């Protein structure tokens, strides 16, 4: 009896499970059996592994080969099992000594000539392996930078099956140059200095960044809504190391990491097209549950342009992540949760034809059409929007001003300073952003000044806002107070917060 073994990881969402690949070669008619609930890509692995082995001048056994992927109840998918299956098969044929291969994790897809191809989800797989006590991993060359983020593990990037076998037999391998993980200062393409005028929108973006308040930009096409949204991640604080790993793990599964600098250090910006489906927005899929736009925007900005053109079911699906900060997708194969805590920016035209602004004489929409269009944004989704801004086209005077607008760096400094003030205030609380203050805490411990509360209560009595709206204005007032350096929100801070929520005035 010859039994070979190797270790790898199966991912369900961000969570990985250690999988033991066992290969048994027995007497009998040549056959190949793969057990352990493989998906289509995995089932095809047999031919890839066979070609790779043969082309590396290794033997493909002409007997009965049984490959078992354990645990047997867990469905397995993807092509990253090619390499561990090949290694287990070779181990069963005792082609190399076992010492180096014990307790080593293998990940990689095999090309027909024996090259080891990159796969998705390397970082989360390594995190799972580390948690199970594994300290050494063989990964594809293409994933080496991502893998090296797990600095606590010994990472062995391999380009070809042949070189891997040489290492297993002799311990020799090409010494790699130390990877310098210090990334080049990210030259951000988008800066607020590109934007002329639009003072109110800039203010709203800054307040949104300080407190994590969701934002709606309304205005005719070409006024600058997209420009503002694109520049919002640039004024958010850079990601902490932990947030970086989180974001990198999610993007790794989605396959969106760049080979050069995979560690995401800036807040992500995700802008799904308004024709995106529900699955594209929140994640899903039939065999593998992939993260959707909401999760890709985790710790960053999700920009939904032309929001009234979106399917209302898709807009509705945003409610779960906005409420809880994560998405849970249940399928037959299991239930997966991805984090999804993002800053939502919605943009909308004033009407379907876009021309209902200024004097509105060119607008061809009936009032019914305008009403139906804008009502797509009503209800529970709009309730979560704290800031509403009209973005109007620039006047000639504003466009011709020679001075650049304030830079993103300058705005970001203020945002970081305000966020630090808030963090100090909430040092004993389980939340850290103003938008997260629960209503009860707002009433008990975090009330604005007396005059400000009187103003708000008057508006409440006049039925100009609801109680929920009142709380939202209070949270925004705190962000404005943090920016102004006030200990508590003043009446002016509160009036500004109120007018930003209502969306009128300038």
């Amino acid at each position, binding site marked *: 009896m010859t039994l070979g073994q190797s270790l790898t990881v199966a991912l369900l969402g961000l969570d990985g499970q250690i999988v033991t690949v066992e290969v048994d070669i027995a007497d009998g008619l040549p056959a190949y059996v793969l057990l352990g609930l493989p998906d289509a890509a995995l089932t095809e692995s047999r031919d890839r592994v066979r070609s790779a082995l043969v082309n590396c001048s290794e033997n493909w056994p002409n007997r009965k080969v049984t490959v078992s992927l354990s645990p047997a109840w867990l469905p397995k998918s993807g092509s990253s099992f090619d390499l561990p299956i090949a290694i287990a098969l070779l181990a069963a044929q005792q082609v190399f000594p076992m010492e180096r291969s014990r307790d080593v994790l293998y990940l990689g897809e095999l090309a027909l000539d024996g090259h080891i191809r990159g796969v998705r989800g390397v970082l989360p797989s390594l995190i799972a392996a580390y948690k199970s006590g594994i300290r050494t991993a063989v990964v594809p060359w293409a994933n080496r930078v991502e893998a090296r983020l797990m600095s606590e593990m010994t990472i062995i990037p391999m380009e070809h099956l042949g070189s891997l076998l040489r290492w297993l037999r002799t311990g020799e391998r090409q010494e790699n140059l130390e990877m310098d993980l210090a990334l080049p200062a990210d030259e951000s393409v988008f800066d607020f200095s590109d934007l002329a005028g639009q003072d109110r929108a800039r203010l709203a973006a800054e307040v949104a960044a300080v407190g994590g308040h969701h934002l709606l930009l309304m205005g005719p096409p070409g006024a600058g809504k997209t420009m503002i949204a694109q520049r919002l991640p640039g004024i958010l604080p850079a990601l902490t190391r932990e947030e970086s790993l989180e974001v990198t793990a999610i993007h790794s599964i989605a396959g969106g990491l760049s080979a050069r600098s995979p560690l995401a250090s800036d807040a992500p910006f995700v802008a799904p097209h308004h024709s995106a489906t529900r699955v594209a927005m929140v994640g899903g899929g039939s065999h593998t549950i992939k993260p959707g736009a909401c999760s890709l925007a985790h710790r960053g900005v999700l920009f939904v342009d032309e929001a009234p053109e979106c399917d209302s079911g898709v807009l509705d699906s945003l409610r779960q992540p906005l409420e809880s900060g994560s998405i849970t997708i249940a399928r037959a194969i299991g239930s997966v949760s991805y984090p999804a805590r993002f800053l939502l920016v919605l943009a909308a035209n004033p009407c379907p034809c876009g021309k209902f*602004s200024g004097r*509105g004489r060119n607008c061809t929409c009936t009032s019914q059409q305008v009403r139906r269009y804008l009502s797509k944004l009503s209800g529970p989704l709009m309730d979560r929007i704290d800031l509403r801004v009209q973005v109007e086209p620039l006047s000639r005077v504003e466009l011709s001003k020679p001075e650049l607008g304030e830079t993103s760096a300058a705005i970001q400094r203020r945002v970081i300073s305000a966020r630090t003030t808030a963090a100090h205030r909430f040092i004993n609380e389980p939340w850290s952003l103003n938008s997260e203050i629960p209503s009860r805490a707002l009433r008990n411990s975090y009330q604005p000044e007396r005059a400000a509360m009187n103003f708000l209560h008057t508006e409440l009595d006049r039925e100009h806002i609801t109680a929920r709206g009142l709380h939202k204005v209070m949270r925004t007032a705190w962000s404005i107070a943090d920016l102004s350096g006030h200990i508590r929100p003043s009446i002016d801070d509160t009036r500004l917060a109120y007018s930003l929520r209502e969306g009128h005035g300038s």
Partner: protein
Amino acid sequence: MNILEARAILFSSIEGGSTFWTREIEDHGPIEVVRKLRARAYDPIRFEKIIAKVFTTEPSTVLAEIASCGCQFITPEDVQWPSRLNDLSAMPIGLIVKGSIDALQLPSLAIVGTRNPTNYGVRVAGDFAAGFVDREWAIVSGGAYGIDAAAHRGALVAEGVTIAVLAAGIDVNYPGGHAHLFAEIAETGALVSEVMPGVRAIPARFLIRNRLIAALSCATLVVEAAFRSGSLRTARDAAELMRPVMAIPGPITSPTSEGCHRLIGERAAEVVTSVADAVEFVASYK
């Protein structure tokens, strides 16, 4: 057949807003007009539908249908008929009223405007409604989304009387979202309709209905209106009736104020910027 029965037949057969039929009824009286219709004395092709309806309509059925909705049918012969309506060249044949008929006699301000107002318009409409209600006036409007609803609500909040002139049958509740509002209005004020119960709202009926709003009230105020808003029609109707017409200005960058600015620019409406202004203007208007 008596006058009331004749009017019932004509009311259910003829669409409102026709100067021809108004003149016929004025010249010959309703009973005679019914008789002439049944004698085919009118153009059979042009009035084919009306003639067919007149033949098959039983006045008792019409009156019973109206009564079963909890409404009353009033005609120009009634003491309670609002005399301001008589200024119309296309006076209604009759009116179905749910609620207080006396409310129609009160001095009233019509507040009209766009169905898609900004928060500014909603607030101003509500404030003016409340302001005039405080001065014992009633508020007349069309029961539509937007400015109309804001005006009705403003009046109700100030515990005043408001009248909604509907474009559909009195039991149809158009728009559907205002079913509750209409019920509230009918408690202290009135719902008015110029069509039979069950009749649906169609675009043409809105314009016909607007003249009633203009005529029933002593003055008309346009709060916010887009360039092509139907409420501009109501303002013109009011002007034609020699009633005071007022408009609220707004930012020139706001398309919902463009219609008001048009009225003001064409001197078709007076600019008012406060309830006091409006009261003074109406009082001094001759």
